C-alpha cells in the first residue's frame, strides 16, 4: 500500500501542472480584462491602459505565465485584483461554506440514494421499486437551479418555514446554520441522490442473485438480514465509486446552488472572478478544486481496500 500511495501522490503534480497551465492560458486568452470591469463603463481608454500597466497586465503572456509558476512554487497564489487581498485569504474565507454545503448535500444524497436503491432492489418489480426509481428519474431530469428557485418560493416565500438565502457559520450559530443549509443541501443533494440510487439498485440486484445469497435464504435468514447484512456490503464497492465521483461533482455542482442561495463559497467566488476577469482568483480556485478532486479520487481508491479485503495495492 505504501509504495502505491507514494506513486499516486507523485502523479498529482503533473496533473495539477497541466490543469493550471490550461486554465491560465484560457482565462488570459478570452476577451475582456479586469481593469475595464473595475474602472466602470465610463472610464477612458487611457485610464484603462494606465491601470493595466500598474497591475502588470501589459506584459507578454509568457512572462505572466512564468511569473505565475514562480509564485506557485513559493506557495503564493497572488493578489486578487478585485478583492484587494491575497488569493489564499480569499479562498480560505470561502472554503467553509463550500465544504459545509458539499458535505450536507453528500449526506442528503447518500441518505436518500443508498436506501432507495437498496429497497428498490430488495422489492424488485413492486410498487416500491417503480416509485423509487421514478423519483430518482426526476432527480436526474430536474435542473438544479429550477429546483432551488422552487424550493425558495414554496418553503421560504409561501410557507415561511425556512430562509430564502444566505449562510450562517456552524461555529457562530449551529441552529441557524442548519436552517440556512436545509434548502441548499436538499436541492443539491436530491439531484445527486438519483445516480446513487440507480447504481445502488443495479449493484444490489447483481449481488442478490449470487449463490451465497440463495444459501443464506435457504438457511432461513430473514429478508432484512439477507439484504442488509450479507448483500449490502458486497454491493458497496461500485457504490463507493459513485459516491466518490458524486463528491467531486458536488464541488462543481455547488456553483449554481451557491449563487441561487447566495452562499459565499468557492463556487460563487469563481463565477464572480470569471465575470470580473480576476485572473489570480480563477487560477487559485481551479488549483484548489483540482487538488481536491484528485485527492478525493485517491481516497476512494484507498477505501476500496478497506471495504473489500480482497483488493490489494502494491
Amino acid at each position, binding site marked *: 500500500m505504501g509504495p502505491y500511495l507514494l506513486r499516486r501522490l507523485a502523479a498529482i503534480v503533473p496533473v495539477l501542472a497541466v490543469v493550471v497551465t490550461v486554465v491560465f492560458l484560457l482565462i488570459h486568452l*478570452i*476577451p*475582456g*480584462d*479586469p481593469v*475595464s*470591469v*473595475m*474602472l*466602470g*463603463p*465610463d*472610464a*477612458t*481608454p*487611457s*485610464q*484603462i491602459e*494606465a*491601470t493595466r500597466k*500598474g497591475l502588470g497586465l501589459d506584459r507578454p503572456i509568457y512572462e505572466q505565465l512564468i511569473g505565475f509558476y514562480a509564485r506557485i512554487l513559493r506557495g503564493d497564489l497572488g493578489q486578487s485584483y*478585485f*478583492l*484587494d*487581498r491575497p488569493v489564499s485569504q*480569499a479562498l480560505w*474565507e*470561502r472554503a467553509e461554506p463550500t465544504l459545509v454545503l458539499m458535505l450536507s448535500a453528500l449526506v442528503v444524497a447518500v441518505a436518500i440514494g443508498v436506501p432507495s436503491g437498496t429497497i428498490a432492489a430488495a422489492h424488485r418489480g413492486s410498487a416500491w421499486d417503480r416509485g423509487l426509481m421514478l423519483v430518482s428519474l426526476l432527480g436526474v431530469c430536474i435542473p438544479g437551479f429550477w429546483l432551488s*428557485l422552487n424550493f*425558495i*418560493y414554496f418553503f*421560504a*416565500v409561501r410557507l*415561511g418555514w425556512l*430562509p*430564502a*438565502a*444566505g449562510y450562517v457559520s456552524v461555529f457562530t450559530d449551529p441552529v441557524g446554520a442548519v436552517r440556512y443549509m436545509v434548502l441548499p443541501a436538499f436541492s443539491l443533494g436530491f439531484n445527486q441522490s438519483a445516480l446513487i440510487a440507480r447504481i445502488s439498485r443495479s449493484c444490489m440486484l447483481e449481488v442478490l442473485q449470487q449463490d451465497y445469497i440463495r444459501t443464506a435464504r435457504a438457511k432461513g435468514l430473514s429478508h432484512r438480514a439477507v439484504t442488509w447484512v450479507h448483500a449490502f456490503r458486497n454491493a458497496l464497492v461500485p457504490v463507493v465509486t459513485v459516491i466518490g465521483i458524486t463528491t467531486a461533482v458536488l464541488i462543481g455542482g455547488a456553483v449554481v446552488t451557491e*449563487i*441561487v*442561495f*447566495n452562499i*459565499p463559497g468557492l463556487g*460563487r*467566488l469563481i463565477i*464572480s472572478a470569471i*465575470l*470580473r*476577469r480576476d485572473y489570480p482568483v480563477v487560477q487559485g480556485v481551479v488549483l484548489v478544486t483540482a487538488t481536491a478532486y484528485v485527492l478525493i479520487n485517491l481516497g476512494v481508491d484507498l477505501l476500496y481496500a478497506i471495504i473489500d479485503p480482497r483488493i490489494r495495492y502494491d
Partner: protein
Amino acid sequence: MARSVPVPKVLVAVVAVLLVAVGAALAADAPRKGGVLRVGNLGEPPALDAHWTTASITETLTNHIYEGLYSLDSGNRPTPMLAEGVTVSKDGLVYTFKLRQGVKFHNGKEMTSEDVVASLARWGRQAVPGKALFAQVAEFKGLDKYTVELRLKDKSAIVLISLAVPNNFGAIYPKEIAEKFPPEQKVTEYIGTGPFKLAEWKPDQYIRMVRFDEYKSRNEKPNGYGGGKTAYVDEIRWVPVPEVATRVAQVETGELDFADDLNLDAYDRLKKNPNARAIVSKPYYWLVAVMNKKEGLMTNQKLRQAWQAAIDIEPIMKNVAGGKTEFYRMDSSLAPVEVAAWHTKLAGLPWNEHNKDKAKRLLQEAGYKREPIRFMTTQEYKWMYDFALLTKQQLEDVGFNIDLQVVDWATLVKRRNNPKEYDAFTTGMGAFYDPTHHIYLTAGWPGWTTDEDILRLQAELARETDPRKRMALWEQQTRQFYEKVPVIRYGDLFGLRAARNTVKGFNEKTERVRFYNVWLEK
C-alpha cells in the same frame, strides 16, 4: 341664573378617541432612530474609492460615506454640501469656495482647506469629471483654513456641476489619505465626512456602514441628494445578492428590507405582497446603440441615418419593459425629464420615424451591399439583449445584414475600445446633469465622435456660462445629434426596486438609492 348645557359624555369620549388616534398616526409617521437596514444589491463594488471608478455600485455606496463640495438638489442642479457657497469673480475665472466649519471626518479630524485641495487634486488626475474640469484649471489652492480658490484658464460653465455630480465624484478625503494613495491606486482606508462610516467590509458577503454620531448635517430640509441628512438607522448592511430572483424572494420573506435592480417580471408579484411595495425607479437608463465612427461600415453617416429611420421604437421599448407601460417612456430628448434644466421638446426630429422607404433609400445612397454589420450585445443585461434582438429583426426587414454578437459584459467593455472589433454595440446611458458630460459626444470614448460641428458645440457649451445661451446651444446640439447620428437613441427604460413597508422616508425620485433620511418603522 343661566343653566349650563351639559356636554354629552359620549361626545367627550369620541373626541378623546379621535385625539389618541391622530396622535398615534402622527407618531407612526415620525422618524425614529434605530435598526439595521438590510439592502440587497447586484454585486460587489470594485472599490470604495469614489475617485477611482465610474461603477454605479461604487457611486451608491460611497455617497453614504463621503461628501463633496457640492451635491445635486431635487431639480438636479448644484447645491452646496461641504461648501458654504461660492463667489465667482467678474471675469468668471476665479471661484472662491468658503468651506463649512466644524465638519468632522470619521477619524475625528476637522475638514479644512488642505484636505479639499489634496482630495480634488487627486480627483482631477483620475476621475472622468475631475480630469475634464482640471483640464481647464490654472491653479487650485487653499487661501486659509476654510477657503479654497480655483483659477480657470478660461471661462467655464462646468465648475459647479462637475463638483456636484454623484458618479466618480469629488469626494473629500483627509489629506493624509489623498496623498498616501496615488490616483491610479485604489484607496483602501475609508474615511469621509458622510452620515455613515464604514464599519466592516467582507467581500461578497456584506458591507456594514454605521451611523456617524458626529456627523454635521446641513440645516436645510432634504433636497434631492443634498440638503439635510440624518442617519436614522444604526446600520446599513449592503448584501450582494447576484441572483435577481433570490433578491426578490428575500424582500418578500423580510430577510432584506430593500432590493435594487430587480427584474420587471417581479413587479406584479411585488404589488400583491401586503408587506412590501414595488418602486418604479426613474430615470434608469436610456437605451442606445453606439456606432463605431472610427473604422468600418458605420463610419458612413447615411448608413447610420438609415438605421435611425428604420426602427420602430415603441414596440421595442414595450417588449423590453415586459409589456408594462409603467416601465418605459418615449422621449427624443437627450436629457431625461428628471433633468429638467436640459430636457428638450423639439419638433421635427428624425426620431422614431419607422419609415422603411426612407431607410431603404438611405441604404441605397450609402452604397450598402449587405455586408454584415457586427452588432455587439450582452445577455448579462437582459434589456440590452432584448432591444438588440428586436432591432436586428427590424433592420433586416429593410435590407440590413446584422451579425448579432452576444458576449459577456467584460468582453463587450474590452472590445468596444478596439475599433476593429465591432460596428455597433448596445449600452444604456444614465442621467447626465450637464450637456458637457454626455460622454458619447466625445472623441475619446468608444464610438469616437469626431464630428467637427458636434465637438465645436460641446466646446462652446463648456465655455458659455449664460443659461439661456447654453440651452440654445444644447438645442442645436440635439439637432446635430439626430442629423449626424453618433448613436441611435431609443426610449427611456425604468427600473424596479422593492422595499418592505417598514422602510420609511425613502426618496423615490433620485436616480440612485440613498438611505440617509430613511428610518425603519417597528
